[in-house]
Protein backbone atom coordinates (compact mmCIF):
# COMPACT_ATOMS: atom_id res chain seq x y z
CA UNK A 1 0.00 0.00 0.00
CA UNK A 2 1.29 3.49 -0.78
CA UNK A 3 2.24 5.51 2.29
CA UNK A 4 -0.89 7.42 3.36
CA UNK A 5 -1.48 11.14 3.27
CA UNK A 6 -2.24 12.68 6.65
CA UNK A 7 -4.68 15.43 7.59
CA UNK A 8 -5.83 17.05 10.82
CA UNK A 9 -9.59 17.50 11.20
CA UNK A 10 -10.18 20.60 13.33
CA UNK A 11 -13.23 22.00 15.10
CA UNK A 12 -14.42 24.04 12.10
CA UNK A 13 -14.29 20.96 9.86
CA UNK A 14 -16.20 18.85 12.39
CA UNK A 15 -18.83 21.59 12.80
CA UNK A 16 -19.26 21.88 9.01
CA UNK A 17 -19.75 18.10 8.88
CA UNK A 18 -22.12 17.84 11.84
CA UNK A 19 -24.35 20.86 11.23
CA UNK A 20 -26.48 20.19 8.15
CA UNK A 21 -27.32 23.91 7.80
CA UNK A 22 -23.68 25.00 7.98
CA UNK A 23 -22.66 27.11 4.97
CA UNK A 24 -19.82 24.67 4.13
CA UNK A 25 -21.71 21.44 4.90
CA UNK A 26 -21.96 20.04 1.34
CA UNK A 27 -18.34 20.85 0.57
CA UNK A 28 -17.17 19.36 3.87
CA UNK A 29 -19.21 16.20 3.32
CA UNK A 30 -17.76 15.70 -0.16
CA UNK A 31 -14.21 16.27 1.07
CA UNK A 32 -14.73 13.93 4.07
CA UNK A 33 -16.07 11.17 1.77
CA UNK A 34 -13.01 11.51 -0.46
CA UNK A 35 -10.65 11.43 2.52
CA UNK A 36 -12.35 8.26 3.77
CA UNK A 37 -12.34 6.60 0.36
CA UNK A 38 -8.72 7.38 -0.44
CA UNK A 39 -7.70 6.23 3.04
CA UNK A 40 -6.08 9.42 4.23
CA UNK A 41 -4.84 9.16 7.80
CA UNK A 42 -7.28 11.31 9.77
CA UNK A 43 -5.92 12.97 12.89
CA UNK A 44 -7.61 15.01 15.59
CA UNK A 45 -7.03 15.83 19.25
CA UNK A 46 -9.06 15.34 22.42
CA UNK A 47 -9.16 19.14 22.75
CA UNK A 48 -10.73 19.46 19.27
CA UNK A 49 -13.33 16.82 20.19
CA UNK A 50 -14.20 18.67 23.39
CA UNK A 51 -14.36 22.01 21.61
CA UNK A 52 -16.55 20.53 18.83
CA UNK A 53 -19.03 19.10 21.32
CA UNK A 54 -19.27 22.54 22.98
CA UNK A 55 -19.44 24.67 19.81
CA UNK A 56 -21.93 22.37 18.06
CA UNK A 57 -23.84 22.01 21.34
CA UNK A 58 -23.92 18.21 21.15
CA UNK A 59 -25.99 16.56 23.84
CA UNK A 60 -26.77 12.97 24.82
CA UNK A 61 -27.56 10.88 21.72
CA UNK A 62 -25.84 13.11 19.11
CA UNK A 63 -22.75 13.24 21.36
CA UNK A 64 -22.73 9.44 21.58
CA UNK A 65 -23.04 9.08 17.78
CA UNK A 66 -20.25 11.63 17.29
CA UNK A 67 -17.84 9.95 19.73
CA UNK A 68 -18.65 6.47 18.38
CA UNK A 69 -17.88 7.69 14.84
CA UNK A 70 -14.66 9.45 15.82
CA UNK A 71 -13.42 6.71 18.13
CA UNK A 72 -13.91 4.04 15.45
CA UNK A 73 -10.82 2.74 13.64
CA UNK A 74 -10.87 5.64 11.19
CA UNK A 75 -9.53 8.49 13.37
CA UNK A 76 -6.28 8.85 15.23
CA UNK A 77 -6.84 10.91 18.37
CA UNK A 78 -3.79 12.62 19.86
Amino acid at each position, binding site marked *: *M*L*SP*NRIVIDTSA*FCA*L*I*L*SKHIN*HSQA*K*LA*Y*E*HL*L*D*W*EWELWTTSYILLETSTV*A*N*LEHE*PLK*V*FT*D*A*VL*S*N*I*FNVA
Partner: protein
Amino acid sequence: MKRDLSNDECNSIFQILISKYQIDQNAFRSYLPGVADVIEKHAASDTEGGHRSVVSQVEREKLCNSLLRLLSDKNISKNEAIQALEDCATLIQDGSLPYEIDRRSLLSLIQKVVGMPVSKVTKTTKIQVSGSEARKEVAILRDVHFDLTWDDRLVRISVFPEKAKERTQALKLVGLL
Protein backbone atom coordinates in the same frame (compact mmCIF):
# COMPACT_ATOMS: atom_id res chain seq x y z
CA MET B 1 28.18 31.14 -13.26
CA LYS B 2 26.76 27.60 -13.11
CA ARG B 3 25.43 26.31 -9.80
CA ASP B 4 24.66 22.77 -8.64
CA LEU B 5 21.02 21.68 -8.67
CA SER B 6 19.36 21.47 -5.26
CA ASN B 7 17.79 18.18 -4.06
CA ASP B 8 14.32 19.61 -4.69
CA GLU B 9 15.22 20.54 -8.26
CA CYS B 10 16.71 17.07 -8.88
CA ASN B 11 13.57 15.40 -7.45
CA SER B 12 11.34 17.63 -9.54
CA ILE B 13 13.25 16.80 -12.75
CA PHE B 14 13.17 13.08 -11.90
CA GLN B 15 9.38 13.18 -11.30
CA ILE B 16 8.86 14.91 -14.68
CA LEU B 17 10.96 12.24 -16.40
CA ILE B 18 9.03 9.46 -14.65
CA SER B 19 5.72 11.00 -15.77
CA LYS B 20 6.94 11.20 -19.38
CA TYR B 21 8.20 7.61 -19.18
CA GLN B 22 4.82 6.40 -17.89
CA ILE B 23 2.95 7.96 -20.82
CA ASP B 24 4.83 6.07 -23.54
CA GLN B 25 7.65 3.82 -22.36
CA ASN B 26 8.77 2.73 -25.84
CA ALA B 27 8.96 6.24 -27.28
CA PHE B 28 10.77 7.45 -24.16
CA ARG B 29 13.29 4.59 -24.41
CA SER B 30 13.95 5.31 -28.09
CA TYR B 31 15.01 8.88 -27.23
CA LEU B 32 16.65 8.37 -23.84
CA PRO B 33 17.58 4.70 -23.33
CA GLY B 34 20.03 5.46 -20.51
CA VAL B 35 17.45 7.44 -18.54
CA ALA B 36 14.83 4.70 -19.13
CA ASP B 37 17.29 2.18 -17.61
CA VAL B 38 17.75 4.38 -14.53
CA ILE B 39 13.98 4.80 -14.11
CA GLU B 40 13.38 1.05 -14.42
CA LYS B 41 16.16 0.33 -11.92
CA HIS B 42 14.58 2.86 -9.55
CA ALA B 43 11.18 1.16 -9.98
CA ALA B 44 12.70 -2.28 -9.34
CA SER B 45 14.31 -1.12 -6.09
CA ASP B 46 11.08 0.50 -4.95
CA THR B 47 9.48 -2.66 -3.63
CA GLU B 48 8.31 -1.51 -0.21
CA GLY B 49 6.24 1.63 -0.58
CA GLY B 50 5.45 1.65 -4.30
CA HIS B 51 5.72 4.71 -6.54
CA ARG B 52 3.04 7.37 -6.38
CA SER B 53 2.15 8.61 -9.86
CA VAL B 54 2.44 12.33 -10.47
CA VAL B 55 1.21 13.98 -13.67
CA SER B 56 1.86 17.36 -15.23
CA GLN B 57 -0.86 19.99 -15.57
CA VAL B 58 -1.38 19.21 -19.29
CA GLU B 59 -1.61 15.45 -18.66
CA ARG B 60 -3.93 16.06 -15.70
CA GLU B 61 -6.33 18.06 -17.88
CA LYS B 62 -6.13 15.46 -20.64
CA LEU B 63 -6.90 12.62 -18.23
CA CYS B 64 -9.77 14.53 -16.56
CA ASN B 65 -11.36 15.42 -19.91
CA SER B 66 -11.17 11.89 -21.30
CA LEU B 67 -12.49 10.52 -18.01
CA LEU B 68 -15.47 12.87 -17.91
CA ARG B 69 -16.21 12.08 -21.58
CA LEU B 70 -16.17 8.34 -20.84
CA LEU B 71 -18.37 8.76 -17.78
CA SER B 72 -20.97 10.73 -19.74
CA ASP B 73 -21.38 7.72 -22.05
CA LYS B 74 -23.93 5.29 -20.58
CA ASN B 75 -22.88 2.37 -22.78
CA ILE B 76 -19.16 2.05 -22.23
CA SER B 77 -17.49 -1.30 -22.78
CA LYS B 78 -15.60 -3.30 -20.16
CA ASN B 79 -12.27 -2.22 -21.66
CA GLU B 80 -13.30 1.44 -21.57
CA ALA B 81 -14.36 0.99 -17.93
CA ILE B 82 -10.93 -0.48 -17.13
CA GLN B 83 -9.26 2.45 -18.90
CA ALA B 84 -11.41 4.92 -16.95
CA LEU B 85 -10.58 3.22 -13.64
CA GLU B 86 -6.86 3.26 -14.44
CA ASP B 87 -7.11 6.99 -15.17
CA CYS B 88 -8.96 7.46 -11.86
CA ALA B 89 -6.18 5.57 -10.03
CA THR B 90 -3.55 7.85 -11.56
CA LEU B 91 -5.50 10.99 -10.63
CA ILE B 92 -6.16 9.73 -7.08
CA GLN B 93 -2.41 9.21 -6.53
CA ASP B 94 -1.85 12.68 -7.95
CA GLY B 95 -4.54 14.04 -5.60
CA SER B 96 -6.45 15.55 -8.51
CA LEU B 97 -9.48 13.35 -9.19
CA PRO B 98 -12.33 15.80 -9.98
CA TYR B 99 -15.04 15.95 -7.29
CA GLU B 100 -17.64 15.22 -10.00
CA ILE B 101 -16.35 11.66 -10.06
CA ASP B 102 -18.03 10.44 -6.93
CA ARG B 103 -18.40 7.06 -5.24
CA ARG B 104 -21.45 6.20 -7.35
CA SER B 105 -19.59 6.78 -10.65
CA LEU B 106 -16.65 4.68 -9.48
CA LEU B 107 -18.92 1.87 -8.24
CA SER B 108 -20.71 1.75 -11.58
CA LEU B 109 -17.37 1.51 -13.45
CA ILE B 110 -16.19 -1.25 -11.09
CA GLN B 111 -19.48 -3.10 -11.64
CA LYS B 112 -18.82 -3.02 -15.40
CA VAL B 113 -15.47 -4.71 -14.84
CA VAL B 114 -16.42 -7.14 -12.07
CA GLY B 115 -19.82 -8.02 -13.50
CA MET B 116 -21.73 -7.55 -10.23
CA PRO B 117 -22.40 -4.73 -7.74
CA VAL B 118 -19.69 -4.34 -5.08
CA SER B 119 -22.45 -4.19 -2.43
CA LYS B 120 -23.27 -7.85 -3.19
CA VAL B 121 -19.78 -8.97 -2.18
CA THR B 122 -20.00 -10.33 1.37
CA LYS B 123 -16.42 -11.42 2.07
CA THR B 124 -12.96 -10.19 1.07
CA THR B 125 -12.60 -10.95 -2.62
CA LYS B 126 -9.79 -10.48 -5.12
CA ILE B 127 -10.67 -10.33 -8.81
CA GLN B 128 -7.87 -10.80 -11.35
CA VAL B 129 -8.13 -8.44 -14.32
CA SER B 130 -4.79 -9.05 -16.08
CA GLY B 131 -1.73 -11.25 -15.69
CA SER B 132 0.78 -8.40 -15.32
CA GLU B 133 2.95 -8.01 -12.23
CA ALA B 134 1.41 -5.79 -9.54
CA ARG B 135 3.78 -3.18 -8.10
CA LYS B 136 1.54 -1.03 -5.93
CA GLU B 137 -1.83 -0.95 -4.22
CA VAL B 138 -4.11 2.09 -4.36
CA ALA B 139 -7.37 2.69 -2.46
CA ILE B 140 -9.92 3.70 -5.10
CA LEU B 141 -12.67 3.55 -2.52
CA ARG B 142 -12.26 2.63 1.14
CA ASP B 143 -13.66 -0.84 0.45
CA VAL B 144 -12.16 -1.29 -3.04
CA HIS B 145 -8.41 -1.36 -3.67
CA PHE B 146 -6.57 -1.78 -6.95
CA ASP B 147 -3.31 -3.62 -7.50
CA LEU B 148 -1.57 -1.78 -10.32
CA THR B 149 1.52 -2.22 -12.46
CA TRP B 150 4.21 0.38 -12.12
CA ASP B 151 2.61 2.40 -14.94
CA ASP B 152 -0.90 2.21 -13.43
CA ARG B 153 -2.35 -0.66 -15.48
CA LEU B 154 -5.02 -2.56 -13.54
CA VAL B 155 -3.96 -6.04 -12.39
CA ARG B 156 -6.39 -6.97 -9.62
CA ILE B 157 -9.42 -5.54 -7.83
CA SER B 158 -9.79 -6.28 -4.11
CA VAL B 159 -13.11 -5.76 -2.33
CA PHE B 160 -13.21 -5.46 1.48
CA PRO B 161 -16.83 -5.47 2.75
CA GLU B 162 -15.73 -4.87 6.38
CA LYS B 163 -14.16 -1.57 5.33
CA ALA B 164 -17.51 -0.47 3.91
CA LYS B 165 -18.91 -0.87 7.45
CA GLU B 166 -16.10 1.30 8.87
CA ARG B 167 -16.95 3.95 6.28
CA THR B 168 -20.66 3.85 7.18
CA GLN B 169 -19.74 4.23 10.87
CA ALA B 170 -17.46 7.21 10.16
CA LEU B 171 -20.19 8.89 8.08
CA LYS B 172 -22.71 8.79 10.93
CA LEU B 173 -21.48 12.12 12.25
CA VAL B 174 -22.34 13.88 8.96
CA GLY B 175 -25.49 15.99 9.26
CA LEU B 176 -26.01 14.92 12.86
CA LEU B 177 -27.79 18.21 13.70
